[in-house]
């Protein structure tokens, strides 16, 4: 049982990393970035290339993946979202879905449909704590996720650009009147969210030793579920939602059959949307007329 908790925590912390990107973008744009799962996939591929082809050490490969995905995220925003800043929601939404399909199939065309192995580039030790088996890689996932989340919290709460991000999320027009370049802050938000997704992509890719072009879809949806569960727009909510979802999924698979794994996440999503769409820590957004 305790073993499941450990598994749930590792899975959940990676969901949380993905959920953060959704939540941050939603905070500034009120848009669900459908292409986020594909950016996660792109991050995993860049990490794979950096680690396997270029032979970079793990930490450098990770940073390369994060930087690369950040660039992809900013480009996506520039092409598909910025021209539609004043367009109705439905148009932006369809554009986002189009971008997601485009990126997935671009990876398919460039990389081929096969699943590539992504071995962990260092030796993994098994730690035995009582009956518990924890691999050093689980510890690495947890530490990296927690480290990134603390870093993000610091960035958003303590720095000037974080303050600008919060101001843009609060009210774009007023923020721009205060001399904040709204477009630059939105691009920055995409960059940060994408970098976090890439970190998750590399970690999960290594954990399952598999990277393929459609790997982004399910984690993307689950990251979104986690974001909604915690309350879209709330950064602590995304972390909490990710951990809860990871736990629920691991427990659900332990209790039910594993074929229903994905249905569990969607069931939770449906339930949250129906009962409390604002999520656990989210604020209730009133529609402006």
């Amino acid at each position, binding site marked *: 049982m305790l073993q499941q908790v450990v598994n749930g925590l590792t899975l959940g912390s990676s969901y949380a990393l993905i959920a953060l990107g959704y939540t941050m973008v939603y905070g500034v*744009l*009120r*848009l*669900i970035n459908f292409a986020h799962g594909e950016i996660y996939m792109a991050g995993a591929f860049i990490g794979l290339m950096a680690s396997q082809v270029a032979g970079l050490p793990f930490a450098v490969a990770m940073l390369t993946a994060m930087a690369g995905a950040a660039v992809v995220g900013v480009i996506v925003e520039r*092409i*598909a979202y910025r*021209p*539609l*800043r*004043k*367009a*109705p*929601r*439905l*148009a*932006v*939404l*369809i*554009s986002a*879905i*189009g*971008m*997601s*399909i*485009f*990126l*997935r*199939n*671009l990876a*398919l*065309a460039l990389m081929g449909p096969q699943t590539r192995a992504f071995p962990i580039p260092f030796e993994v030790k098994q730690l035995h704590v009582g009956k518990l088996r924890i691999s050093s890689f689980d510890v690495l996932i947890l530490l990296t996720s927690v480290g990134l989340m603390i870093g993000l919290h610091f960035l958003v709460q303590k720095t000037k650009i974080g303050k600008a991000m919060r101001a843009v999320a609060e009210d774009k027009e007023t923020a721009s009147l205060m001399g904040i370049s709204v477009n630059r802050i939105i691009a920055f938000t995409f960059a940060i969210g994408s970098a976090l997704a890439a970190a998750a992509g590399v970690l999960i890719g290594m954990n399952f030793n598999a990277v393929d072009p459609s790997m982004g*879809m399910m984690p993307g*949806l689950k990251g*979104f*579920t986690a974001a*909604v569960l915690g309350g879209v727009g709330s950064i602590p909510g995304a972390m909490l939602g990710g951990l809860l979802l990871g736990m629920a999924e691991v427990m659900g698979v332990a209790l039910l*059959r594993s*074929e*229903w794994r*994905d*249905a569990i996440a*969607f*069931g939770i*999503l*449906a339930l949250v*949307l*129906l009962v409390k*769409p604002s999520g656990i820590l989210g604020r209730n957004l009133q*529609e*402006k*007329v």
Partner: protein
Amino acid sequence: MLSPYYYQLLVIASINVIMALSLNLVTGCAGQLSLGHAAFMGIGAYTAGILTAVYDLPFAVALVAGGAVAALFGLLVGIPTLRLKGDYLAIATLGFGEIIRVAILNMKITGGPFGLRGISKHTNLTIAACAAVLVYWTMTRLMNSRFGRALVAIREDEVAAVAMGIDATRHKVLAFVIGAGWAGIAGGLFAHWFRYLHPSSFAFGTSVEILSMVVLGGMGSLEGSVLGAVVLTYAPEFLRGVSPFVSEHRMLFYGALLVVMMLVRPQGLVGEGTTGLRGSKLRKLKVFERFQIGKARHGLAATRKKSGNLKDSTDTCTVKEQVVDLAIGSGAGSKGAGVAGQVSGGGDEHAGA
């Protein structure tokens, strides 16, 4: 005579036309983005297929039953989800679509991952084309009815529509149920043409393909949906000859198509330009004026009901223009005069991202 190749292409095109028209009712006319439409097709296909293959029922009965079961699921999914808006609705429908697919994959009677075999061939071009024409005809009737106009009103401005006494959720659910039912019938035709069903035929990718058809043709436009369905059915076949790469990676181009259409021509190839996508005339008006328009529209509907003098054939577009004229004549002429400015407040905000 047609070669078997073109015959099959036309059958598929007819099925796709039904799918596009049914999604158009939900997404184009009512403005509710659904990303799980293929799941309803799947439900219809499996229901009809199982009824003829396992229970030996006649094809016609199976087809109708498939549509009915799909509509029932449309109701079950629609009631909870359609209270949600925009992005949430899109994700929720996507989620339900996937749940339905996973369920089909894990059931015994559907053959699970091995697929459903042994369905006999009943669909032919005549049946498929007749069904497509029938759906098209009902759609034109539907969109010229009070119900259709209410859907358009919800799409253009849900708050204003509700203020005018339109039960938005009920109308949206009804549109969803009708759309799901037709998708189920399309699924039944699909099942009895290909004679083999697999859950992967009804996955997210198929929903996106149908959405691409609707968007390419023009959301809310019936002719557009037909055109989009025919073009996107034929395009991969055509491109196979020109460039195998394009045909093989057609999803790549569907994705790009969706983005480019939204950037360049959000109303689609033959769209009317008032699909709620391009900040329509109505949307640009202030709240007070919208209220006046709503009042005028409501009055118009009431008059129509009483006297029946107005011709029923006026389509939504001209009604809207009449209404705008009416509204501007009857009080909203205060554009620029104090009232509208004061009441409106964040009127423009509504369309903003």
